[in-house]
């Protein structure tokens, strides 16, 4: 018991040190960290839809986009504060998720993957061409920024906002996972037939998981819109959706920590591979394959399996 307390205390101190250390980072480093956190928020959503409910979800970027555009438009057209904009973004994405998930509850496996692909591509085409509302290819600019009016550099201030939101998202996700809803999802992941036999309404459960996933995506998108002040269709297409799902798989599809690790890892990877130049994405494809084949449980799962016995033995 005291050992666990020690661990927790250690973690808190480490966290505070990291947060204090962030003040010494350059704007560029903070920007990467912020983008990683924003990605992590939408990938936690995917943890529910794909990691637990097993739905191959290739439209999360579109829900990020719905959150971003809804929040940006609310702030621009209705002149609400960006904070209210965040709420609007989450609600818009969750509603869109419900609209797609409800008819989808009958379709499963590859059909579901293809439905989300169709949705993803259609969404991108629509925001590219609905110029009067979305600004078309040029995107939306001059979106009101989310500020706390502190004396800090804007990047640093937004970094702290993002850390706080991510922490809230993680806590919410952990509570949800421990709730009857989360336990039912885990039962479905382990054995769908057995779960159905014990009275779980699988279609309903998956619909809920999908809506939850969309809400996380919407929050991430709304934050993104009020961070850079500019959004364009390029950020919300199928390629980005594939990237978000890859983050979960690389990090470890069965853990919330995996979602965060994967988001950071794949956001930083282009920087680390910059010396390769144009071939970066080819290496990325190979890397994905290697993770799938060699680390079936992702970075977190594999490292955990490797570390835990050693730590236990050393005691």
């Amino acid at each position, binding site marked *: 018991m005291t050992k666990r307390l020690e661990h927790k205390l250690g973690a808190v101190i480490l966290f505070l040190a990291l947060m204090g250390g962030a003040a010494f980072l350059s704007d560029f480093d903070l920007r990467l960290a912020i983008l990683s956190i924003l990605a992590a928020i939408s990938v936690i959503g995917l943890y529910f839809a794909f990691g637990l409910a097993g739905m*191959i979800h290739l439209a999360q970027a579109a829900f990020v986009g719905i959150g971003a555009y809804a929040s940006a438009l609310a702030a621009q057209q209705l002149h609400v504060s960006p904070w209210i904009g965040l709420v609007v973004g989450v609600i818009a994405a969750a509603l869109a998720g419900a609209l797609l998930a409800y008819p989808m509850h009958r*379709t499963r496996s590859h059909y579901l993957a293809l439905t989300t692909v*169709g949705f993803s591509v259609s969404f991108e*085409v629509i925001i590219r061409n609905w110029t009067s509302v979305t600004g078309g290819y040029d995107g939306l600019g001059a979106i009101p920024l989310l500020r706390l009016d502190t004396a800090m550099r804007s990047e640093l201030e937004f970094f702290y906002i993002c850390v706080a939101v991510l922490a809230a998202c993680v806590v919410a996700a952990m509570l949800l996972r421990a709730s009857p809803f989360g336990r039912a999802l885990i039962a479905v992941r382990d054995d769908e037939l057995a779960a159905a036999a014990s009275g779980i309404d699988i279609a309903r459960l998956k619909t809920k998981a999908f809506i939850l996933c969309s809400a996380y995506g919407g929050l991430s998108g709304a934050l993104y819109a009020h961070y850079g002040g500019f959004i364009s269709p390029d950020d919300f297409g199928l390629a980005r959706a594939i990237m978000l799902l890859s983050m979960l798989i690389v990090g470890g599809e069965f853990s919330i920590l995996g979602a965060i690790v994967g988001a950071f890892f794949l956001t930083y990877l282009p920087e680390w591979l910059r010396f390769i130049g144009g071939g970066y*994405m080819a290496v990325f494809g190979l890397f994905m394959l290697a993770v*799938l084949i060699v680390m079936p449980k992702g970075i977190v799962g594999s490292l955990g399996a490797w570390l835990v016995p050693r730590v236990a033995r050393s005691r």
Partner: protein
Amino acid sequence: MDAAFQQLMQLLLNGIAVGCIYAIMAISVQLAYETTGVVNFATGQLVMIGAVVGASFALSGRLGVGEIYVMTLASMVAIGLVFAVTVYWPLQSRSISTVVIGTIAVGIFLQNIALIFFGPLPAKGFSPVGDSVLNILGVVVPAHTLFASAATFILIGGLYCLLHYTSIGIQMRAIAQDVEVARLMGIRTTLVLAFTWALTWVFAGIGGLLLAPLWLVDVDVGDSVALKAFAAAIIGGFGSIPGAIVGGLLVGLNETLSAAYISTKYKDVLVFGLMIAFLLFKPRGIFGESVNERG
């Protein structure tokens, strides 16, 4: 004959040619799905590879059209076998969604490797019938549209014969029914699956070779083409060859006609709207698989 009617006829012929090519790609998707349960998300990149490899053989100048086709398809067989050995077999025992995501990774890899080797410029299409045009009762069409349609029907006829009258085809169908039982019956499933993957790659490659003269095919064409192939497979019905033909033609005609008469910008949305409607309300498609969904 008035101009509007002439235009309509040209659009119809064009739509049919494009639709036939989509049908070939849809069959490529279906072959893999039927025997392995995997929806191959790299299909579009395979089509692209077929087109750019064909074009670069053509650029080298010394080869005849027949040789270009043969060498391109031989390359596709080789890459297909490499895929089966390096990606499919290691992942075979894992969940279907893992393999599906593996095919996405393969697609990303192929697209960017192609970008490095062939550059971002569109492949110049070439056709066995050249750039000639035919004048049929006042309707002017490129000869290639007729060639593509004819080639499609010959190929599909060939595939039908392969599946029903040859030993390997019957083994493929046995595996599609139940891979475990097929293995117990003494079918060497590993070999047959490798053959299936090679065939998948070849069909996609032929799709690329036929598509290149109609469109500008560059290394980014993969995703949009793959989606049309999926749409064709879904609308027609997964697991049905007549379904692939009907689905392909519907998607091709829908795309060509709606681009001309409704909106160029939204033509893809109309196609995917149709696909999503089928997915949601009639997921088995027109000719639909009757039973299980795997994975």
